[in-house]
């Protein structure tokens, strides 16, 4: 199958709504995902990310709005659309009774692929997942990172145009995460459309061309990571930690005017500034306060938009 031309939308969602009892889980959500791009859905726990994915796959019925996935209307033509889609679910559901290769074989059959076609694809898929020697390994003997990669390989068994990934690296160590990221970039360079949910801001910043930040089912910001950072927060951040009775409160009160915005959270103050020089000078030689100076990132945008309080 040729990849769709980059301009045609892989996914188009308009005024989507979904309620569970009286809670609006998805509330008048609209967005487009360009073919061949990587699109991220960001949001705190309970923001509606997974529900949005389920709606887009036709696994839940919307209360309002329209969805077109790969040109097909969802949920009416969901089965047809899913034939060209791969899904990496939030929690691995590999078949524990099968080996790695059997997992791929059995999964390929759900796409009505014949065994010869699937068997021909298995070595390439395992190699892509870094599991070449593991064809006959039982699932229980694989590490968390290996299972995640096998789940990714399984999502590719039908050579999809669009891949959905629900928190693809949650629970993985840094090495395993970097390997997944590398593979996802490779998929994008092959022309696949990636649609992922995450609450790791570094993951979103690295991978996504475009992001939608969701909170309580509503879109609260959308754009490229760079545009969001430029538009929403000051470019420089100084985090000041009170280490040994440095009297952070007094420092903040005295130097507030040097920053565009100051937030405190426990023993840390965040100074968001256009120009950090004056504040850095004030911090130099100040006993009891430790600080780091960094560029603003997506996490700053996210916290600014969704607040610092815990979401459980």
């Amino acid at each position: 199958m040729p990849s769709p031309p980059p301009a045609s939308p892989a996914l188009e969602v308009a005024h989507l709504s979904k309620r569970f009892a009286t809670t609006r889980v998805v509330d008048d959500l609209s967005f487009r995902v360009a073919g061949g791009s990587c699109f991220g859905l960001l949001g705190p726990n309970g923001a509606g990310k997974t529900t949005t994915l389920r709606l887009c796959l036709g696994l839940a019925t919307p209360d309002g709005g329209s969805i077109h996935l790969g040109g097909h209307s969802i949920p009416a033509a969901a089965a047809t659309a899913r034939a060209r889609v791969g899904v990496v679910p939030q929690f691995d559901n590999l078949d524990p009774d099968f080996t790695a290769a059997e997992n791929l074989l059995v999964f390929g059959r759900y796409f009505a692929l014949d065994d010869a076609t699937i068997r021909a694809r298995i070595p390439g898929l395992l190699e892509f997942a870094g599991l070449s020697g593991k064809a006959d390994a039982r699932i229980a003997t694989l590490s968390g990172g290996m299972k995640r990669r096998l789940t990714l390989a399984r999502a590719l068994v039908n050579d999809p145009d669009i891949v959905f990934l629900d928190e693809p690296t949650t629970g993985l160590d840094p090495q395993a995460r970097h390997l997944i990221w590398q593979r996802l970039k490779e998929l994008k360079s092959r022309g696949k459309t990636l649609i992922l949910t995450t609450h790791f801001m570094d993951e979103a910043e690295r991978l996504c061309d475009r992001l939608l930040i969701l909170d309580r089912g509503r879109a609260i910001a959308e754009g490229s990571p760079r545009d969001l950072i430029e538009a929403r927060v000051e470019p420089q951040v100084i985090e000041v930690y009170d280490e040994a009775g440095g009297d952070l409160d007094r420092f903040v009160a005295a130097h507030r005017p040097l920053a565009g915005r100051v937030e405190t959270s426990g023993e840390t103050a965040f100074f968001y500034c256009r120009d950090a020089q004056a504040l850095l000078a004030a911090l130099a030689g100040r006993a009891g306060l430790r600080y780091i100076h960094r560029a603003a990132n997506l996490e700053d945008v996210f916290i600014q938009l969704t607040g610092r309080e815990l979401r459980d």
Partner: protein
Amino acid sequence: MNLTSLIGWLPVWRRNFLVWRKLAIPSILGNLADPLIYMLGLGYGLGALLPPLDGQPYVAFLAAGTVCASTMNAATFEALYSAFSRMHVQKTWDGILNTPRSLADVVAGELFWAATKSLFSGAAILAVVAALGLAHGWIALWALPAVVLTGLAFAALGLIWNALAPSYDFFMYYFTLFITPMTLISGVFFPADQLPGWLTAIGTALPLAQGVALVRPLLAGQAPPDALLHAMILLATAGLAFVIALKLTRRRLLK
């Protein structure tokens, strides 16, 4: 290539078959041992004290009941515990639903798989029954389709309960409230007309009794009276229960 909706369930069935194949021998032996011990123990032990029933020795009478009860149990266990573990614990169904397969494909795949397992079980018992000389003539082979119908009916009924179950513990109620009492009033161990009239009437209407009414004459070498009626009741039970199970499962999984 596109799977037609008619065989969309087949990859689901094949998945379960592949798992079973890895454990086939212990699975068959496990399914066979318990009912055979009862059949032989009660059949020859208790049977020695009893007069012939319906013109045959008690062990032959019990053999037909055992074939049907084993079929029912195999279908029920598969549709309850095994399907629940795939649906709820391992989330195998969730994975399948991310592919072009529909929920109807998944539930139908489980239905036909549970019926297949019950056929293995029923056929294995039948083979032993035949080897013991308790089956009379080739007509006994007609018991196999009767076993399939019985398995389909109980697989579909089990899938209803599966769709409603919050946990494995819930299945106990199905056995104590439905399966066990039914086994006792459906003519498996003794002729149902021994019971008070109203209880006989209930027992005769239940699905297990339809299977028994087909299998017992067939093993004795006779064509069952009202065979078509019993077969239609089993088929209707399977069809109706499947529709209900699918509706309930859809409500549970595709909110």
